């Protein structure tokens, strides 16, 4: 129907998440018809990403400089570590902007049912980081899922003996939501984890 080169491009685009045949063809023909500079810029960006982006040797976030900007920023509190499952989670928390500590990316979650073990994640380097000293608090910010909670329990087992303070992200009712519309899961958690009012200030 169209040339080999275009077919190859359509094939590559289709392999991306959320892209089906129709979308892949639309994107491919958009690039074919756009000024050549457009396609070259995209190609360069893809090449740069594949060549220069790697995990930070300290926190395992994706970065093009090692250690990453977050790890090298002297303005961030090195005594407070936020542990997340994936680089996307760092992005989500950084978008909020309120967190001024540093991160540690596990590159996954323990999955008891899928056979992903604690050893498959970057927990050993995290333990080494905490053992080096200077860390007061580790915030366990894995997802509030079965796997995320299993991961938090494995982190607790690994970190509690080091005497560091462990915290977990709060969970409960969404701001602006209503009790009537909240799911049973959220309401159950909100009831079980009810807190003193007014909330204790640290």
């Amino acid at each position, binding site marked *: 129907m169209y040339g080999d080169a275009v077919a190859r491009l359509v094939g590559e685009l289709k392999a991306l998440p959320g892209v089906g045949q129709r979308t892949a063809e639309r994107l491919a023909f958009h690039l074919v018809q756009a000024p050549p500079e457009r396609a070259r810029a995209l190609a360069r960006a893809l090449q740069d990403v594949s060549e220069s982006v790697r995990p930070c040797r300290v926190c395992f976030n994706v970065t093009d400089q090692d250690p990453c900007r977050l790890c090298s920023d002297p303005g961030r509190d090195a005594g407070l570590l936020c542990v997340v499952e994936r680089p996307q989670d760092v992005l989500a928390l950084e978008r909020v902007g309120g967190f001024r500590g540093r991160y540690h990316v596990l590159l996954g979650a323990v999955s*008891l*049912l899928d056979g992903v073990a604690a050893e498959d994640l970057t*927990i050993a380097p995290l333990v080494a980081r905490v053992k080096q000293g200077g860390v007061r608090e580790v915030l366990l910010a894995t997802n509030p899922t079965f796997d995320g909670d299993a991961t938090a329990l*494995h982190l607790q087992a*690994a970190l509690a*003996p080091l005497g560091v303070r462990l915290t977990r992200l709060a969970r409960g009712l969404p701001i602006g939501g209503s009790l009537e519309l909240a799911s049973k*899961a959220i309401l159950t958690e909100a009831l079980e984890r009810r807190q003193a009012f007014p909330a204790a200030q640290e």
Partner: protein
Amino acid sequence: MPAVPILKTEALVLRAIEFSETSLVVWLFTRDHGRVHVIAKGARRARSPFEGALEPLVRAEVLFYRKARAEALETAKEVDPIDLHLGLRTALPRMVRGAYLAELLAAFSEPEVPAPETYDAAAAALALLARGPLSGLDLALARCELAVLGGAGLAPVLDRCARCRGPVFGEGVDRAWFSPGAGGALCLAHGDGERGTAAVTRDGLRPLLALALGREVDLTAAPAFRAVRGLLDAYVAFHLGRPLGLARRLEPVGPPARARGPGPRGGARQRTKR
């Protein structure tokens, strides 16, 4: 065109697998229809109608559309949690045993084969795993495991020789055999040649026999724990043709006064990527 039948049953969520960008395939162990695989459309969206209800080991009332063709998936309509079993997530021993139970139920349940007694035993065991005392976790799990095996027609024979129906241990004899293939214990004379058969002592068989007879057994003591787990693990592995992945993660909950360990238990033995 005939209306698509809607079925309603209680179920335990065994696992959820990403199916597409927005949907999950969920394995349910239902009370009335055995194991059912449903597709939950929209479950991976930010505001999912199933929010939190499709997590492993949630007990829920489930409505699903009966599939049109045998090879198709059922479609979940509503999943209304009865018990989220959030207590499982408060301690690793609870969570590991809960996950082991999910693995066991997935392995020994069959589509379209109702197993209400197995279901009730599993639901009761999960409540204990989530909220009961830590010292009772292994008792709850082993009891439920025997119920699951019994429901699958595989209850091990332990109180007599599975072959000759005579006593397992002769007068003054302390040795016998445990043979998953023969269906349980074998007397000294009948243990030969059966694949997977291992020697068992009177003390080694006693705790599992007591459990099967419905008696209380203290499984916090390491010898009783190992005796029961060793026989059950061998039995399950034989009948499945493989050990369950989480069997190796089951360790005695142990006396609480034990010295602080070096971290996640088991070290390299936990590496079980499939």
